[in-house]
């Protein structure tokens, strides 16, 4: 075992594949000498050169669109946008082009590309640099969506994402970049659609991913003292979704809280709740709860941002409401 940060894990995943396959390359805003907005690609241009680690103009439509074109002619590009919020500028290329080309063309084209999108709040970056937009992407048929919560998963999911022949949205939580964690010396690819049970428990299931895994674990610790035994499910892959793991846990605990950092209205958390209500309703003996951000843009001032974003105490409160 060795220690890496979450950001280093993401880099390690890309590095392994770049060493293995010359068709894998990175491009985006300031990914070269600057090392990426959050330093994730630091050192890669020195190692692989400017051909494979390319700075682009600030031109999100061109970044995503060029990835689509490059993938269509046989490469495996990894475009990076500085913030998930900027995906709006390249959204046509993602939603109408990348996600639909294979289907529209009768399955005769493949588009292997991994779009890296730093997400989430908590860094006083205000409304246009703090969003959690996973529901936008999971809503679109043709995209796969993953969201690692720790360094080891960051590597394993990246290895799988780069080898996948479909467009993959790889969401990263920007407050986790510096977080260290133990990783195996040789990390294996983590298959998509396999959730990770972070903590086993019998009384209530918390379904979450990304940064909120830590809020859930903290809440579990607090609830333990009250005699509530929490199970924490880290989805890791939002689509494909590991429904089996969810249902298995619900069948055991019969109570569910879903935690995400998205605005609650129209959230991916809502989709997970709907799936459980639809396919596993009779196993639930309490309402399915969601703990999300409030339905506001993310405010700047620390006191306001902290209030808007969900935390462990909110999770504790939601769990307690079920007992």
């Amino acid at each position, binding site marked *: 075992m060795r220690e890496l940060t979450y950001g280093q894990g993401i880099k390690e995943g890309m590095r392994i594949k770049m060493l293995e396959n010359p068709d894998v390359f990175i491009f985006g805003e300031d990914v070269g000498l600057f090392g990426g907005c959050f330093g994730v690609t630091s050192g890669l241009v020195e190692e692989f050169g400017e051909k494979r680690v390319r700075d682009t103009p600030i031109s999100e439509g*061109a970044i995503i669109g060029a990835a689509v074109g*490059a993938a269509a*002619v046989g490469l495996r590009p990894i475009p990076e946008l500085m913030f998930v919020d900027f995906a709006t500028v390249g959204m046509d290329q993602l939603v109408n082009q990348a996600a639909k080309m294979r289907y529209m063309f009768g399955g005769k084209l493949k588009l292997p590309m991994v779009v890296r999108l730093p997400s989430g709040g908590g860094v006083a970056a205000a409304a246009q640099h703090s969003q959690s937009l996973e529901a936008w992407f999971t809503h679109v048929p043709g995209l796969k969506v993953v969201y690692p919560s720790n360094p080891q998963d960051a590597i394993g999911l990246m290895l799988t994402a780069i080898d996948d022949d479909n467009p993959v949205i790889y969401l990263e939580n920007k407050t986790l970049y510096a977080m260290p964690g133990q990783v195996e010396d040789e990390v294996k690819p983590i298959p998509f659609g396999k959730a990770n049970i972070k903590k086993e428990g019998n009384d209530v299931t918390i379904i979450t991913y990304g940064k909120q895994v830590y809020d859930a674990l903290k809440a579990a610790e607090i609830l333990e003292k009250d005699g509530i035994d929490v199970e924490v499910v880290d989805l890791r892959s939002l689509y494909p979704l590991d429904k089996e793991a969810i249902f298995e846990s619900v069948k055991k605990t019969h109570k569910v809280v879903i935690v995400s950092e998205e605005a609650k209205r129209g959230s991916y958390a809502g989709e997970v709740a709907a799936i459980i209500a639809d396919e596993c309703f009779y196993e639930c003996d309490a309402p399915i709860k969601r703990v999300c951000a409030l339905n506001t843009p993310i405010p700047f001032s620390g006191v306001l941002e902290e209030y808007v974003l969900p935390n462990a105490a909110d999770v504790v409160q939601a769990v307690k409401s079920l007992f």
Partner: protein
Amino acid sequence: MKISNENIIEMYEKMVKIRKFENRAMNLFAEGQVGGFVHLYIGEEAVATGACASLREDDYITSTHRGHGHIIAKGGDLKYMMAELFGKETGYCKGKGGSMHIADATKGILGANGIVGAGHNIATGAGLGIQYKGTDQVCACFFGDASTNQSTFHEGLNLASTWKLPVIFICENNGYGISVSQARHQNITDISQRAVSYNIPGITVDGNDVFAVFEAVQEAVARARKGQGPTLIECKTYRWRGHFEGDPTVYRPEGELEQWKKKDPIPRAEKYILEHNIMTQPEMDKLNEKIDAMVEEAVDFALASKFPDISSAVEDVYTDIVEEGRSR
């Protein structure tokens, strides 16, 4: 003009093929046999034909919502195209794409596209892929006058020129963005002027002169193959039909269509061919008959083909996931 007689005949054949295919599609739509949105290329044949005559089979193109001409010019098969218009399983896209999304990766056709301006960035990406792999292929990007007002035009040309990518940007200026004339959608008359902003060559040619288009594109392709970057070529032309079939074209000034019909690219090419003894009239008639038969064969193929099995609706979303169907 340095074009071989063989090339000239091939270009003539392509233009006639496009015209006849489109006329047949027009009638099939009027008869209700083909549905959806059909955007016909009649009147603009010289652009796709002249441009694709400069390309190799391993070169790429990106197309538009008005894509039939590009597909035929790049070597698309009329049978699979017609079957796709009918929504049949033998169509290019197995009935999932229709008129606006025909693609053939084996011929470098990266797809017709329903989003105006989407091709600028995709073509740039194909150019990036070519440069990355170090081959001497090129990508031709077809787009209309109105798409040059989309942000993608600027983004694509900016990136392609900055990285000197092998892309030929071919603007089909047919004078209208749907119903809005060029004078009402932009403050310039020659779109080639915009090349100045990217420090790349920009020229305007008569888009109804197949040989003029050919020569301009050939020069641009040669530059691109040598790593000298992209070119913007504006081809001034006109669409005879409405934006889509069913468009009553109330926005056209009286007499405008008639004026443009006098510049029909096909009789112009015929005149040149006969005057230069490249073909005789009987040879030309025979070629026309052959193409008529090909179009009918395509219609027969489409009619005889099956509709796709409904289970295929949930396939091809991903390479490895079949989505859930419904029980009916």
